[in-house]
């Protein structure tokens, strides 16, 4: 294991940026808590996978991205999209299956995208994006741009064969793709110790002759710094990096599973409480901002209520949006 070594100045992030990062973390939390309420009421077709507890990963990583960098997400990707600036009403409409959603209400939570923002989107197949991100990197390399690609995946996906094929090829051809493994400790219900023979996923970087870092996923600035360095390396033509962010999934695998009787019997309640209490990334960041003198209880409450308002407006938009037209089932199959 290599802990990421801080090289830059933590304070290169301005007060405005830091506050914006905090706001984006809160937005994600509010959005996903809201989704869970919708789900309880049976308003979400299928299901969705919330990233409550993992907000610092999404926000830290996307803050490090350039405007035209590509983002490849996972099935647990609402946070990635929102952190990157995708419009909340459009995302919510899609999750609810409305015509105004980014996939016309046909993709849902697992098929969100925002092509104008270079967000390739979420993916219903665990590990489905790992090769795609390598290919985007390959195209960027061929086009000789200074863009890069950031690919999220999880500890579960790290055990798919595609992980090996993609990282080997990405390193061999030095494509500008950063692989970010959000290790949230569980692959659906399977804990890391039963999932990975070597629980240090970042150590696998050695096999591909690329840098591998472990980062504290409750520290949004640490995530930012590690991903910024990895993206910089990618842009310099030095190839991919593997950044493992140690995080924790505070909710179940999916909203549907959360509602199943015994659906969370695979992990101890105490473990969840401990992360909720002492390793909650939003609380930790809020404390840090207060220590820096950038935030007060009042300004934190203001941000919270603004995010709640944004969510309410998104709900209004989504609920007032039309259902997709029947003939839309034929759209977008072929160009």
């Amino acid at each position, binding site marked *: 294991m290599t802990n990421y070594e801080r090289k830059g100045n933590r304070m290169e992030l301005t007060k405005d940026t830091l506050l914006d990062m905090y706001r984006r973390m809160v937005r994600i939390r509010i959005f996903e808590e809201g989704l869970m309420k919708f789900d309880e009421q049976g308003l979400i077709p299928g299901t969705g996978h919330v990233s409550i507890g993992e907000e610092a990963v999404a926000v830290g990583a996307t803050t490090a991205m350039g405007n035209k960098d590509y983002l490849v997400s996972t099935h647990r990707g609402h946070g990635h999209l929102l952190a990157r600036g995708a419009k909340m009403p459009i995302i919510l409409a899609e999750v609810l299956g409305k015509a105004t959603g980014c996939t016309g209400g046909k993709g849902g939570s697992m098929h969100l995208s925002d092509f104008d923002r270079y967000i390739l989107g979420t993916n219903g197949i665990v590990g489905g994006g790992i*090769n795609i991100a390598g290919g985007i990197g390959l*195209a960027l390399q061929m*086009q000789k741009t200074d863009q890069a690609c950031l690919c999220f995946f999880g500890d579960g996906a790290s055990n798919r064969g595609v992980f090996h094929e993609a990282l080997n090829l990405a390193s061999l051809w030095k494509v500008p793709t950063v692989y970010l493994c959000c290790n949230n400790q569980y692959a659906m219900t399977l804990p890391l110790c039963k999932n990975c023979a070597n629980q240090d996923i970042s150590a696998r970087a050695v096999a591909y002759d690329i840098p591998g870092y472990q980062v504290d996923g409750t520290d949004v600035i640490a995530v930012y710094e590690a991903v910024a360095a990895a993206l910089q390396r990618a842009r310099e033509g030095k190839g991919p990096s593997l950044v493992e962010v140690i995080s924790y999934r505070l909710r179940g695998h999916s909203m549907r599973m959360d509602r199943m009787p015994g659906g969370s019997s695979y992990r101890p309640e105490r473990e969840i409480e401990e992360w909720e209490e002492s390793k909650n990334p939003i609380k930790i960041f809020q404390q840090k901002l207060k220590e820096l003198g950038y935030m007060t209880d009042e300004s934190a409450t203001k941000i919270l209520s603004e995010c709640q308002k944004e969510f309410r407006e998104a709900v209004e938009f989504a609920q007032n949006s039309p259902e997709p037209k029947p003939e839309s089932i034929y759209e977008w199959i072929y160009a």
Partner: protein
Amino acid sequence: MAERQIAFREAIAEAIKEEMTRDEKTFAMGEDMAVIGGAFGATKGLLEEFGEERVMDTPISETAIVGFALGAAIAGMRPIVEIMRCDWMTICMDEIVNQTAKMRYFTGGRPQIAVVIRTATEGGIGLGAQHSQSFEAWFTHVPGLKVVMPSTPYDAKGLLKAAIRDHNPVIFMEPQILYGASGPVPAEDYVVPLGKADVKREGKDITIVAWGGITPRVMNAAQTLADEGIDAEVIDPRTLRPLDIETIVASVKKTSKAVIAHEANKTSGFGAEVAAQIQELAFDYLDAPIQRVGAPDVLVPINRNLERIVLPGPERVIEAVKAIL
């Protein structure tokens, strides 16, 4: 002046060369396709022509080959990739079926997924049951894919050029038995449009629909039948998805009898789909049950005699024709 004759493999290489010259966004990658020009010699000369930035040997990583191609297409490139054998397409089915075929849908119709996946298909050269299968029916089942299977060097060049220019993922299946077969191929630029069948032989007594490596054998069978006074019409759909059913049905309406021949296993083979569509559209014109010729439900053995028994030849086609005449 006699028409230029070149081999099927040369027609493939020529198509790629012309299209890569035409469009800088294209590039080619796959296992052993650059330095040695492919396991079947169908990409010879491309590395020398375009250099290693556009013609790349890859590791034995089928999921990465297709997945990287998809990613590159999303970011604006037009990759032409090779999975050495159709049998190994099974290794990267997630990338083909769940990712490449669906990406346009999942991104709200935004990017062009201009990916061509070339693969050598079918048997006939003694390589056994993991090197001789033909899975065209697996791919025709998937919305979002186009499936092409040429049977002559002329069609190979023209269809591959059309596939490379197409804005959708195309599975391009090259019958390995045909790589060495020669035929007339114009040296100049031409395209055989996707989704258009070709009447390989006109006839009035019976319609034989055939594609892939069995097509030349069907043509031989038609000649034998002609010698016996039976005038068979042979139609090669060339593109299986989208299927030019109109041309097939027009022929069946004329002959009132149909035989469908392919090399893949008969059960759930694409012939079943063609038969179903014919009866849906031309039931009242049929004078006899549609006959299907395909491999029996066994594996392809390496023993030459056994392989000949399994893979249908002209005599099986003749048998099927005579069963309904």
